[in-house]
């Protein structure tokens, strides 16, 4: 069949930024599937509308997720994308690869799919973009043989992800890669076999800069922080000043809690510091997070559907999260939260929405956490208090 002309898409082969259309061209010669993808996409561009139908349930044996079924609504015109399913492959923590590993993945997908990928999906997975139902199981078996496994989809624990953390970043306050890997391994069943009211995402950020956007995109956000004083190397501060950094305006004046002062020497009132990272970000050579390190646990962020978007909110102001006991305690908390969600969550109700519906205090009671003022920006301003019998002795 003669290749359909794609003048509109070809427009997008021009320009300085790397072109996804060029990527399609790289494989279309040997992949009829991609020829039809280009064709259908050109139709979409001409008609300003998508041409995919809802995905049916497809997958690999024994798993409830990891594959997004996709079918064309123009199967006669573009038979090679009549089936065009996506596979989600759990990325290595921190998205590190060797050339060897990349080639292995490339070869598997060359054999079984469109040859197109997303490196990576928004949740963090490697995305194998487009294959047929028959190819799912063989692809899966080659992947596991090569030491890879599927990621999550549907109402399950989704593939956790982590910032580069201690592997390359001087600010990591806990080992994000280790925690991400540990959670992924310990919760394989929750990852592959949807049994929750809805999706649940973990994202591990090593410090408050939050380079994996965990506070906006994870049901549970684990964000590194420290309790003790910021470490200051006054000599390096001096050098920054000499090098022309306006410490007064660029650092001191921008400190959100106004807890710094500078006059040749930099002073920080660490009890007032809110650990925003700004001063450290600006003077990485002179300032470093303290040494009593750990993480703040926040819960509930999500996109708008359906009660409106949420940012995660603090449920544990500080925990040390390093040795096996601390890991176990943390995972115990996670299990209690899931239990509470299982028992009370409505279908397609995220944990963040559930907590708002039933109330933070109810949630804290259920999972065995004490209320702390660090969990709120301000106490209630309405007098609608549900006093409990013991209320009077408050």
């Amino acid at each position, binding site marked *: 069949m003669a290749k359909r002309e794609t003048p509109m898409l070809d427009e997008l082969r021009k320009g300085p930024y790397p072109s996804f259309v060029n990527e399609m061209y790289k494989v279309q010669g040997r992949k009829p599937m991609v020829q039809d993808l280009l064709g259908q996409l050109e139709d979409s561009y001409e008609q300003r509308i998508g041409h995919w139908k809802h995905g049916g349930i497809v997958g690999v044996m024994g798993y409830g997720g990891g594959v997004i079924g996709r079918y064309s609504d123009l199967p006669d015109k573009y038979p090679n994308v009549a089936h065009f399913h996506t596979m989600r492959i759990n990325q290595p*923590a921190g998205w590190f690869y060797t*050339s060897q590993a990349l080639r292995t993945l490339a070869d598997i997908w060359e054999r079984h799919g469109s040859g197109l990928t997303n490196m990576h999906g928004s949740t963090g997975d490697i995305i194998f973009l487009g294959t047929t139902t028959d190819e799912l199981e063989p692809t899966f078996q080659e992947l596991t043989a090569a030491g890879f496994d599927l990621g999550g989809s549907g109402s399950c624990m989704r593939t956790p992800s982590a910032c580069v953390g201690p592997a390359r970043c001087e600010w990591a306050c806990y080992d994000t890669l280790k925690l991400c890997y540990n959670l992924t391994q310990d919760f394989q069943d929750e990852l592959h076999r949807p049994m929750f009211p809805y999706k649940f995402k973990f994202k591990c950020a090593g410090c408050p*800069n939050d380079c994996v956007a965990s506070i906006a995109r994870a049901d549970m956000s684990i964000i590194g922080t420290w309790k003790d004083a910021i470490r200051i190397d006054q000599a390096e501060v001096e050098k920054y000043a000499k090098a022309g950094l306006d410490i007064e305006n660029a650092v001191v004046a921008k400190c959100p809690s106004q807890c710094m002062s500078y006059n040749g020497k930099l002073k920080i009132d660490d009890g007032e510091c809110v650990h*925003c990272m700004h001063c450290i970000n600006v003077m990485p050579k002179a300032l470093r997070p303290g040494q009593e390190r750990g993480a703040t646990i926040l819960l509930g962020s999500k996109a708008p559907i359906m009660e409106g978007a949420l940012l995660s909110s603090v449920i544990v102001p500080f925990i040390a999260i390093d040795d096996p006991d601390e890991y176990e305690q943390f995972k115990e908390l996670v299990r209690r939260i899931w239990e509470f969600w299982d028992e009370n969550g409505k279908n397609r109700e995220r944990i963040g929405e559930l907590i708002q519906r039933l109330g933070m205090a109810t949630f804290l009671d259920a999972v065995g956490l004490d209320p702390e003022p660090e969990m709120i920006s301000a106490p209630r301003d309405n007098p609608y208090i549900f006093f409990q019998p013991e209320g009077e002795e408050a």
Partner: protein
Amino acid sequence: MAEAPAKRITDIGPPHYEKFLPPIVKKNYGKWNYHEILKPGVMVHTAESGDKLYTVRAASPRLIAVDTLRMFADLADKYCGGHLRFTSRNNVEFLLTDPSKIDALIADLAQEGFPVGGLGAEISNIVHTQGWVHCHSAATDASGVVKSVMDALMPYFKGEKRLPAKTRVALACCLNMCGAVHCSDIAILGVHTRPPKVKHDVLKKMCEIPTTVASCPTGAIRPGNVDGFESVTVEEKLCMYCANCYTVCPAMPLNNPDTDGLSIWVGGKVSNARSEPRFSKLAIPFLPNNPPRWPEVVQAVTNIIEVYAANARNFERIGDWIERIGWPKFFRLTGIQFTRYHIDDFKHAGWTYKRSTHIKFEQ
């Protein structure tokens, strides 16, 4: 599905990350001391041991062919012992120990069409989603819009033009917001603007009526008997086109070539640096879907970035800047029209009403 045969390997999870870490990272794991940005797209991390790790960051369209994976692999072998990584914004990073190889690598990447940049206060890759390439729910394409906008923003990616602070752009092709655009400095969001057309015949085959009814945030969907059999009807006045019904029930499509389009949101952030994380707020309610280059969207985004770059103070994210000058001035400076759509009318709308007399008047 049927149980898997015993010999079949399952539930092994991803490879252990340590297998992929460069030796220098293994040696200095958790012992990094500081970093410096050497030039656009290139930074060095110095360990307490004194070891230095050089990172070269290249742009990526995210949708890449296996050929490109192999090309990356070859470059990694040639320049850095086969070691590389991808970032949380889908750029690719080569991890070098020998600084003398940096320029050659950059040249090879340029050769292949992968420019280097996106560090620090530069524009980095646009977090985005599937669009017409793979999703049934899309109100617009993702990759095409991103390509068009990034072509225009390259001077900011390459550091040829300066910005006051990190400026994160994201795109999501529908209200599900897989691109998590709700906390971006600039967000591009595909929107429907017409209620779903119920296909009653399909509905009775494919959808559960209670689930469909429950899926509507505004309660616009009512169960009802339509010509003979059970179906649902949509109270169109209550519909704000979120498509959540379509997500749970294929019989309620909203896609429409003429009334689907894009909206622009500004001022969100994720980091805790200086100010607390913040949601993006509506800047432009609707721009038309205009492939292949979406000129209206490109113009709108560039305009906001240029006004921001010209007016904000150092270290001010777009949201911090607007907080300081106030929204009225943001609309004046950008020339964006303020409309009834900008005024919130969802559940917590009252929180966004101005409840003080702290008002600025032009002099």
